[in-house]
């Protein structure tokens, strides 16, 4: 029988229902498994591969089970943040860079978002835990205390009905229950001073709407640093700011990093910011890492066609070109990713092998790795 408009509609709807049902079941399975684990004192301790790292992501997979299909937001990401270093994670919107950081903080939108596989090993100097399996009560001693986060929107991350002082105090008091009120207050003012706020006493009593964007971001940084974190996760810290204010904030972050000897995981789409701040760079595309290396590796010897395209498509001051290079096409739909390299449909240098399986990370030098078949001969593949 030939398919009419109505039978087609019925078939599509049936398929959608099936996808929805399957995803709901999967999601429920993860929730139940977590609930069962909660009762027992299961083993969430782990050991680092390299004790000099603060965080090691090992084959992290974070999926979102939605009614229209499973979104593989992060699909097998492996990288580490060494102690005292700044690691930049770059990529376009939807590449999974924010989900990677939210997985590290365990702030995923549950139950739809789940870490389905892999480990996030975090080392605080005395013990190593696997954040993916850490119970919630343990997580609260880590989150905000040992790993702090600076969010993108300083406008929406502060509560408009409380004073700045109250909000900074709260962060400090929560993580230091033995401090009394006066000590907390002194510490808050000290923090505000440290981030370069000219009259900290006045700002302490001010409400968020009285401050400019740059000042609010300084307050956010003060809150993040208040508990002497080992790692600062900065998710697009300067995207909402003007360039002159961005320069102030980046200068401040660089200065503070040396002062408190923390590591920074900097998530951004701005290649200029990464070049300026990061020691190591991770380039992500559609939930996977396509290239990683030191900043010099990535900016002076980019290997993956996506990295090359990204660098060429950005106009830069005092380097004139008649026409900008642009990567053709768009980022693929995160549901139904192909089996072959995700970048292949947009790649101008694809070869026969690109139709095969997804390329592994190929090590081309001591520090530089790339997931592309073009560089297979230059290096050694490894997991």
């Amino acid at each position, binding site marked *: 029988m030939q398919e009419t408009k109505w039978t087609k509609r019925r078939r599509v709807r049936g398929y959608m229902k099936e996808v929805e049902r399957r995803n709901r079941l999967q999601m429920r399975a993860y929730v139940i498994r977590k609930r069962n684990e909660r009762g027992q004192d299961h083993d969430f301790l782990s050991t680092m591969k390299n004790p000099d790292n603060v965080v090691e992501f090992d084959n992290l997979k974070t999926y979102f089970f939605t009614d229209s299909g499973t979104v593989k937001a992060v699909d097998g990401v492996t990288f580490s943040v060494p102690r005292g270093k700044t690691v930049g994670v770059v990529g376009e919107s939807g590449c999974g860079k924010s989900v990677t950081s939210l997985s590290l903080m365990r702030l995923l939108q549950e139950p739809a978002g789940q870490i389905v596989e892999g480990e996030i090993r975090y080392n605080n100097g005395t013990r190593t835990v696997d954040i993916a399996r850490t119970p919630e009560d343990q997580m609260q001693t880590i989150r905000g205390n040992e790993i702090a986060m600076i969010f993108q929107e300083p406008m929406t991350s502060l509560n408009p009905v409380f004073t700045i002082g109250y909000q900074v105090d709260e962060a400090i008091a929560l993580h230091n229950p033995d401090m009394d009120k006066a000590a907390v207050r002194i510490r808050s003012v000290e923090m505000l001073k440290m981030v370069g706020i000219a009259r900290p006493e006045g700002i302490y009593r001010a409400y968020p709407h009285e401050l400019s964007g740059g000042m609010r971001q300084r307050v956010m940084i003060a809150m993040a640093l208040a508990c002497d974190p080992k790692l600062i996760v900065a998710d697009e810290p300067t995207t909402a700011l003007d360039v002159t204010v961005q320069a102030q904030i980046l200068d401040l972050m660089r200065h503070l990093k040396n002062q408190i000897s923390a590591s920074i995981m900097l998530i951004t789409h701005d290649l200029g910011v990464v070049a300026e701040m990061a020691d190591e760079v991770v380039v992500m595309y559609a939930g996977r890492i396509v290239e990683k290396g030191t900043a010099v590796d990535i900016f002076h010897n980019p290997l993956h066609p996506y990295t090359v395209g990204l660098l060429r498509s950005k*106009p*830069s001051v005092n380097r004139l070109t008649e026409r900008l290079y642009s990567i053709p096409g768009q980022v693929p739909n995160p549901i139904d990713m192909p089996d072959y390299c995700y970048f292949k449909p947009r790649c101008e240098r694809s070869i026969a092998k690109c139709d095969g399986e997804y390329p592994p990370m190929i090590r081309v030098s001591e520090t530089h790795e790339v997931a592309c078949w073009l560089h297979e001969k230059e290096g050694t593949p490894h997991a």
Partner: protein
Amino acid sequence: MPENLVEVRNLVKHFPIRSGVLQRVSGQVRAVDGVSFDIPKGSTMGLVGESGCGKTTIGRTILRLVESTAGSVRFEGEDLFAIPRSRLRVMRPRMQMIFQDPYSSLSPRMPVGEIIGEAVREHGIVPPGEYRKYLAEVMESCGLQKQHVDRYPHEFSGGQRQRICIARALALKPRFIVADEPVSALDVSIQAQIINLLKDLQSEFALTYLFISHDLSVVEHISDTVGVMYLGSMVEMGNKKTIFEKPLHPYTKALFSAVPVPDPLVRMDRVILEGDIPSPAHPPPGCKFHTRCPNRMEICSREVPETIRYADGHEVACHLYSKEGP
């Protein structure tokens, strides 16, 4: 000397601040405070500055989307602020605007064909018989597929939506387009596609652009002349080459040096400005920039600097420079 398509003279736009029960006017936000510039036919003028400096307000007052407080704008020789509404209606198709956010500037309930074509029908740009064909032509020249004419905006990505916005502006056969941050909401790889599209359309249809952006590298790429704004005033203006190679005003220098360079081995000597941009409701006396200026002098807080114009068209408003030359 090419003919000027747009001539702006002493444009002023103040927004009243109302307060109290009676909503009495208690102050003025000086969004645009006496700005003059010309845009020659077929060229692109870039307008840069930080948020709140009045660059968007300039774009909107020129098109009479908001009424100006004082000044004049001549478009193809006609004074836009003096003509009656009926004449303005005839003029409107010739000057179009592309907005920053392609998500909120498209009606979610209208199919793409209607978004692009509504004004075409309203203004009678093409005879009714050729309407469908014209629509398809416009969509194709903006890189959209003509079979998408019945789709709704939510089915498109950010870059595609911006193409729809461009098609909507282009469909009226304009001569002048105000592009207000057209690529700021887009990813880097999509940004490049849209910038290239704007450049292609400019050479194909001989368009004139006023390109407003806070991204200096984009402005440098697309513009012929560049104006730098600070707190409602134009502090420096000139052709792209002279401005970017030899900036004169301390604010321009600071702005340019603040742009991060995508090269880890280059370390710029950066001029980091202190503090924030002052409120446009209470701009500082004298030179508006003197509160943050690294080279401020005693005169700066007393007198407003005059705009000095050099032979090569470079204009700067700063006490550091005299008429003889920089």
